[in-house]
């Protein structure tokens, strides 16, 4: 039943290897061909960001120069979301619009790092050598391109979203918690319209290094999420920026905005990932949203990362639901912080079109019945389990 404080998705901004914008993504999901870069970081692969016309969303070159790629990706997607919601440039509205950004950190200067790593062991005074080269070689403004909260800061500067600005950190869970708290604030009247999302640049040696240290990087063959499990699974990262405009039903109606979908329920929790614990969390989350759930027109957009243990357990949980499933990481790669917002965007597009896009791999079943709702999962590759239910607006 419609309620005035329902949280509606009224704007989607998304960029990935599949292109730029919701329409481009919908088209690509319906004619899916994997987009992979296997050349830049052998033996690893990444889903590379499609070329962006940055000027469209970040008109000042000075602003573009002040950001590293992860920030440009996010600021671009945020602007697209504001455009999609029809609020871009609406200074009055943007000045009271709240924002929660899920962010990691930014790029390093790889040349400076390499030079220091090379010279340090041979230096007569290694400590002094490190100090001298950091002081002399780091670009002063690089710090601001690295700081987690400066994606939000740049969105405030470039797009004028200044009602509130919060940045959450913590891989997949941060994206889900950002959306969860935005929805809770809207439901409670602690805000009427908010911007939420994040960005991830996977085309960086330091992030590949991080997941390689964890023994999580997939090596060839670079198969889709479910198929790769037979060979032990792994992460195939993707560059993604995704922002959503979420607003109350009343607020959307008052300004004549049309909605993609309604976030009817969203929950998140954590556990130590002993066998069965994540499933228990997911079951509890699912049961808590039973009142909104209608299996007749439902499907699942899964945020499964590909990491073996979590993906295996999630796969078994989803099999129990008996719904058609699509793994968004097969389409755009796994993107940590924005992975949940991106899955939510795919769910919202599908619900708005009333149809699920075709299977992305053989393990996924086709769906011919009309789609009226989608469950969206996000089990972090290490920790954190989240579930949302997206329904027709």
């Amino acid at each position: 039943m419609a309620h005035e404080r329902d949280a509606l998705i009224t704007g989607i901004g998304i960029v990935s290897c599949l292109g730029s914008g919701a329409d481009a993504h919908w088209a690509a999901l319906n004619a899916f061909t994997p987009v992979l870069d296997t050349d830049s970081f052998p033996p690893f692969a990444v889903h590379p960001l499609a070329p962006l016309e940055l000027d469209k969303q970040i008109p000042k070159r000075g602003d573009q120069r002040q950001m590293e790629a992860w920030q440009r990706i996010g600021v671009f997607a945020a602007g697209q979301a504001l455009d999609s919601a029809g609020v871009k440039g609406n200074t009055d509205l943007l000045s009271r619009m709240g924002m929660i950004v899920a962010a990691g950190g930014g790029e390093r200067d790889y040349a400076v790092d390499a030079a220091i790593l090379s010279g340090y062991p041979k230096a007569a005074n290694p400590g002094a050598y490190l100090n001298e080269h950091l002081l002399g070689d780091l670009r002063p403004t690089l710090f601001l391109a690295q700081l987690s909260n400066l994606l939000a800061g740049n969105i405030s500067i470039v797009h004028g979203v200044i009602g509130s600005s919060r940045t959450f950190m913590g891989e997949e869970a941060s994206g889900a918690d950002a959306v969860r708290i935005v929805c809770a604030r809207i439901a409670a009247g602690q805000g009427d319209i908010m911007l939420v999302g994040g960005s991830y640049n996977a085309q960086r040696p330091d992030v590949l290094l991080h997941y390689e240290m964890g023994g999580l990087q997939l090596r060839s063959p670079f198969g889709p999420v479910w198929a790769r499990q037979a060979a032990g699974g792994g992460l195939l990262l993707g560059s993604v920026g995704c922002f959503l405009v979420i607003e109350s039903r009343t607020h959307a109606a008052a300004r004549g905005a049309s909605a993609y979908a309604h976030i009817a329920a969203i929950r998140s929790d954590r556990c130590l990932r002993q066998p069965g614990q994540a499933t228990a969390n997911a079951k509890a989350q699912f049961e808590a949203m039973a009142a909104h759930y209608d299996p007749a027109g439902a499907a699942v957009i899964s945020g499964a990362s590909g990491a073996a243990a979590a993906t295996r357990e999630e796969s078994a949980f989803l099999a129990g639901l008996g719904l058609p499933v699509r793994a968004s990481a097969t389409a755009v790669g796994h993107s940590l912080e924005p992975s949940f917002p991106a899955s939510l965007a795919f769910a919202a597009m599908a619900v708005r079109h009333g149809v699920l896009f075709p299977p992305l791999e053989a393990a996924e079943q086709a769906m011919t019945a009309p789609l009226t709702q989608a469950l969206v999962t996000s089990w972090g590759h290490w920790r954190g389990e989240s579930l949302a239910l997206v329904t027709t607006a």
Partner: protein
Amino acid sequence: MTKDTDHLGRPIVVVTGMGVLTSLGQGQADNWAALTSGVSGIRRISRFPIDGLRTTIAGTVDFVPVPEPSAPALSQRLAELVIEEAVGEAGIGRVGDFPGPLFLALPPVEMEWGQRFALAAASGANDAVTYDDLLRVAGNGSFEPYYRRFLFSSVGENLAERFGTKGSPVATSTACASGGTAIQLGVEAIRRGETDAALVVGTDASVNPESLIRFSLLSALSTRNDPPSSASRPFSKDREGFVMAEGAGALVLESLAGARARGAVVLAVVEGCGEVADGFHRTRSSPDGKPIIACMREALADAGLEPDAIGYINAHGTGTPENDKMEWVGVSAVFGERAGSIPMSSNKSMIGHSLTAAGAVEAIFSVLTIRNGLLPPTINYDVPDPALPVDCVPNVARAVRVRHAISNSFGFGGQNVCLVLGTV
């Protein structure tokens, strides 16, 4: 206080437990004694070589040992210590079973030079070491602890597990306003009725060569290295930058109704929160001070108070020329003719700028200020700045009864958070 709801009909949010740790020491008692005696915690850096550095001082916490030191490791340990104190004081839940969510203000997490050097050494590369060399050895299994330590979620996950907080832990970073943001997140959750209690923590232990140098390259740090205690000089005409510092603060927040029901001692009320972002510049405030002014006004409106009700301002007061000037612009606009006569002191003159933790640490000191009727001074106030006619409680603590205080936090990226704290 007879009602459990505030002027807008929302649950009143109170503080029932606090824990604090700074360069001045561990615990409320030691910190308060030092803070009100005008003691500085700023010292020469001994953690790493200072050769060639322009700034060689910081408010480091050197008395808390951690195995495998790193910023997230020490940040986590400081958080554990302050949470133990806060939860102990509140007497809430059971050990390892806190009845509410965790909101954590945490510095951004990144692998550090020690780990990079270890990877480079393991790679066996001799002349030109690149990331390709690091990647070649990274997956050999021995670096898995680095992966886990430098996940952004690791500190929050470990704290949630240890203290048994409920739900998904939220780690937030809004630069130097992070502690205030974490408190605001907790207040909002209680006001929504989602929970009766929330555990809020701000922690920061980021004094390492690269972090210090990054701030130094932005010309943000004081270079007045001798003596270290003189470096942090908020509101003084000869102020020249802030002093990096470490620390942590934890607060147990509860609904007043919940605190009453379990017979808890109420330490203070979080009366209002204000938050306004600034889209002017990445490191500078709008020259007109509008966002800072709006933020303080929003906090007052949220508290249902007029400016006249405020008896003390716990300043952001970093001691950078820009911050202190803009904070005065904001305070003088909001408080008008009273601005120069409301006491407004900076804890950072003694503890330095604990960055991510500052908002939480200084909210705790604001509560202690109200409870003790004693205003901590701004030390090193030797040369008044005629452009900033503040009553900064110069150099010596002052006994004053305060019913309502405002605590300001302003950060890079246009982050502004103001909290109004009051007596029960």
